């Protein structure tokens, strides 16, 4: 009974092989390369595992002599045959060949990873800054007047390399989108970089992979790989300044935003709010999640988050402000207009 129940968790194992955040993913160049290496290692080591197990069973099955306690009789000497010597040589050769093969596979994989842009293609340039506990995403262009800023969501064009510069403002974080590439740390005082070359359009999930404090577990990143046309369209919409509020509720929310605590930390392009210590909210409604993947984006979660961020994500740097119901509805109405 106990043994059978112990097998149940194995049923969950295949879940790690597919989905939007999985090390089994192959949707990026780096992820595919690492996956191939993993497969080679699996096959080679599996073969050796099977061989070793086979020899072990053979040895047990063919053991000579018995004693009452089951231990081998020391007076029984196994026959020395030439076959045994040959077998030993073959086995040694196989092991050496296997190890050399693995070493070569590892070397070539590392080499591929180290030259992420062999054709020297033009890249999308992104600056990703890790904060406790959200991601500040900035797109940079040759013409600085085209730069824009967003948060917790990364868009990449399929088939083009993207150079992501990694910085941190407070403690060490780590950028990890397993479907696309391996991990790369964000270290305060240092600029790291990673090149992402996504190959398949889709929505993937990234995660902070270095413990960074109380809400490390709620520091996720949505990575959306678009077709080149969709990507261009997305970039164009992100460069536009924020929509102006229209309805009375939105205007009341805008006034609250500009005159109260919101604009001390958040920026909305095209308005007086230019603060950079919190996420940029100019196109908040274009994003899939809020609070770095903690809640899905939508009216209900927005109300919950703004009403009591400490209840949703205790320890987060957004304080409990204590808005009354009217103020809350106004602010959410304004934020929902920021498409």
């Amino acid at each position: 009974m106990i043994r059978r129940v112990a097998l149940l968790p194995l049923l969950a194992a295949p879940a790690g092989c597919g989905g939007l955040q999985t090390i089994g993913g192959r949707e990026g160049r780096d992820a595919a390369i690492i996956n191939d290496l993993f497969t080679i290692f699996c096959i080679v080591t599996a073969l050796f595992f099977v061989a070793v197990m086979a020899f072990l069973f053979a040895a047990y099955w063919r053991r000579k002599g018995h004693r009452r306690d089951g231990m081998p009789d020391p007076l029984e000497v196994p026959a020395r045959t030439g076959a045994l010597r040959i077998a030993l040589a073959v086995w040694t050769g196989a092991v050496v060949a296997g190890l050399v093969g693995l070493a070569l596979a590892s070397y070539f994989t590392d080499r591929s990873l180290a030259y992420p842009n062999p054709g020297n293609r033009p890249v999308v340039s992104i600056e990703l800054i890790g904060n406790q506990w959200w991601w500040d995403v900035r797109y940079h262009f040759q013409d600085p007047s085209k730069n824009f800023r967003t948060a917790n969501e990364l868009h990449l064009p399929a088939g083009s390399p993207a150079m992501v510069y990694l910085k941190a403002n407070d403690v060490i974080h780590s950028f990890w989108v397993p479907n696309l590439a391996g991990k790369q740390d964000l270290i305060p005082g240092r600029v790291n970089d990673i090149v992402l070359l996504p190959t398949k359009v889709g929505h993937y999930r990234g995660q902070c992979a270095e413990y960074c404090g109380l809400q490390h577990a709620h520091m996720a990143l949505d990575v959306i790989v678009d077709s080149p046309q969709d990507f261009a369209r997305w970039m164009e919409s992100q460069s536009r300044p924020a929509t102006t509020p229209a309805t009375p509720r939105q205007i009341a929310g805008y006034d609250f935003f500009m005159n109260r605590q919101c604009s001390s930390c958040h920026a909305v392009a095209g308005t007086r709010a230019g603060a950079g210590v919190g996420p940029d909210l100019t196109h908040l409604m274009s994003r899939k999640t809020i609070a770095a993947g903690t809640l899905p984006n939508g009216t209900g979660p927005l109300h919950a988050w703004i009403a009591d961020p400490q209840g949703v994500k205790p320890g987060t740097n957004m304080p409990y402000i204590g808005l009354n119901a009217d103020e809350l509805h106004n602010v959410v109405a304004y934020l929902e207009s920021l498409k």
Partner: protein
Amino acid sequence: MADRHGAHFLAAILAALLLSFAGFAAPLAAQQNGARPASSASPAEDGQWTMPSKDYASTRYSGLNQVDRANVGRLKLAFTFDTHNRKGHEAAPLVVGNMMYLTTPYPNHIWALDLAKGGRPVWVFRPHPQPASQGVACCDVVNRGAVYSNGRLFFTTLDGMVYAIDARSGRQIWGTKLGDISRGETITMSPLVAEGKVLVGNSGGEMGVRGWLVALDAGSGRIAWKAFSTGPDKDVLIGPRFKPWYASDRGTDLGVHTWPPEQWKIGGGTVWGWISYDPKLKMIYYGTGNPGPWNPQQRPGDNKWTTGVFARDIATGEARWFYQSSPHDLFDHDDINEQVLLDMPVNGRMTPVLVRPGRNGYMYVIDRRTGQVYSADAFGFINSMDGVDLATGRLRMVKDKEPKEGRVTRNICPTASGVKDWNPSAFSPRTGLLYVPHENLCMDEGVFEANYISGTPYVGAEVKMYAGPGGHRGVFTAWDPVRRKAVWEFNENLPLWSGALATGGDLVFYGTMDGWFKALDAVTGKQLWARKLDSGIISQPVTYRGPDGRQYVAVVTGVGGWMGAIVSAQLDPRDPTAALGAVNAMKDLPGLTQPGGKLYVFTLPR
């Protein structure tokens, strides 16, 4: 025997006549290099001092020569006047007829003193600026002086007002509000009044303020035109007559395209320094301040039109040319220093130029018709820049001195306040030399992301300043603009933050931050006279002919300003980053002087 006595008597009378004659003396012979002030901008000497720069050419030179190298050692105190204000006094006293006008720092009182009655105050004008303006003034609550024109005094106040008052009665004629302190704007500069217009610029480059220059009608106080320093061409008053000399200054809406989006709206370029005017060309010349924030990584691009020199039509404000001294400024090198308008030989030909000792440490000689830079030579120690490429006009930067987030860049020379800050130089047509009071300071700087909250500082930098090579923090340089080199230099322990005064007696006057008011020989640089006053001197000394026909030299004490804030605001020397790094360089100042605010007037004994 009677003949000899008679001869002596005659000689004595002649000597007395010569001594009392205070007029324009003939230029010195050998050292003249051909440089002279632009004639239309520099009228004949009248013994008055009606604007801080003395004339539109900004020579700060008086032809009075009663006090000269021979007798300056006998200068004695004629009278004093205590303003009872203990903040940094930067203003130049004005002398019109028998009246002297003093401008104090916040709360910006204007005193009228009767020189015929020993400096007795006749009236005082109290504009009552908003006290909250003290909280958004970056570098002490200073004011650089009022201006007299046509029976009126024009001046600015810290909370962004411009006033016109009657010079005889002290009554207000008009007051116009230009600056908004809730956005971090203040006004500290001395206006320029010409052609019926009062030109005023704002301060606040450390507060995320967008810079501008406004022309008010002198009669009514209404705005005639307003030219921003950033933003689209229509805001900057750039039109078809705009013809910058260098290619990198040509294009459409560069005031937007050389910034990340929206950043130009809080981008700085304030106009808090000096304006010169050429009445023949009808053009004004002024520089714009630093781009904001100090952290350059937050504003990639050239950041037009900050840290550069504008030439504009005074009537309409249209820009005629622009030269950017420090594109994508890295070090807070506001370009607001004075420009002295000279006609001088350049490559053998007499050329109308403006000479400006740049904040970044280069002495620029620029053609004032076109904006072409003829020369830019270092007049102090510089290791963060590598000269100006005269073909493209671009400043060459040293890569590893660039401040970057995440690290501290050490030993950047010159410091943020530059080789020379706002304190103006003086030009003597007799020697042909420009007398430049300046500094020798270097700094360590670390930058980080600045958070913009309207009305609060928007800097993003930590600075620590200290003395440059040699250990002396101040230098007084006599510079030959034609031969492009220093003729002599006088080192000072403390940075020089006072203006310079040049006189026809071949003397130059300036004050030190610990209160020494000095006269140097304009030709050789030898110190001829010095008097220790009650407080450090950061104001602009002037000289005038008094009601009794004698020459007087006046200066106002009262240490403060950016460098002197440690004394005037009683800052704590244990924090070297205080006052944007100045405290570290001036830790010894509280032991050398104290806050003050007093006018001292000197003259020769009878």
